[in-house]
């Protein structure tokens, strides 16, 4: 069976510090990978998605970047965090087929102070 791991679960970082959130998927190959941010009352906002190694699509221009150094690894980064980067970040994957739903990790709660 497939599993998705996301860490850390909680993170408190000062403004201006760097960020690295990591996500890995096990039990499948060549998954589509996604980063979402969830802010209170605003649902889930798609940040980045990737259909393969080194292939990153950005939905929203912002202070964040994503990388996919390996087939089942997806990293969300920032060089300098802003207060507005606080939120709940979710990694997800699905198969490259039309009816495949998203499968989510447990999320990371990021607080920028």
């Amino acid at each position, binding site marked *: 069976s497939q599993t998705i791991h996301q860490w850390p679960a909680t993170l408190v970082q000062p403004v201006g510090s760097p960020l690295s959130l990591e996500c890995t998927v096990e039990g499948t190959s060549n998954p589509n990978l996604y980063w979402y941010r969830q802010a209170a009352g605003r*649902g*889930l906002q*798609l940040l980045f998605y990737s259909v393969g190694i080194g292939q990153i699509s950005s*939905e929203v221009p912002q202070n964040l970047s994503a990388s996919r150094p390996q087939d089942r690894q997806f990293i969300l980064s920032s060089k300098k965090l802003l207060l507005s980067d606080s939120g709940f970040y979710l990694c997800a994957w699905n198969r490259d087929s*039309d*009816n495949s*739903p*998203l499968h989510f990790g447990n999320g990371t709660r990021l607080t920028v102070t």
Partner: protein
Amino acid sequence: AQTVTQSQPEMSVQEAETVTLSCTYDTSESDYYLFWYKQPPSRQMILVIRQEAYKQQNATENRFSVNFQKAAKSFSLKISDSQLGDAAMYFCAYRMVPGNQFYFGTGTSLTVIP
């Protein structure tokens, strides 16, 4: 851009009763998929049900069913025999075909009253 609207920020239902959560979406595409996800207090996102736009038959998963009205671009979720464990935030989501983006509504917080 595709938008998904959930007009009910909060809903409540008595235990064992039935509740319907609303979702509408805006698209010019004819082929797409729709999903309902549940997010309990643990914040784990759980797939509840999915619907293919080309299928006229409404999807059903145990106590969960949908009312899919393609012409009206409406996709509501009905929960029958509500249980305390159904209390959660529910999100409606849309996926265009072909495409990899999933678009989510802002969610409906469901309270189940014992």
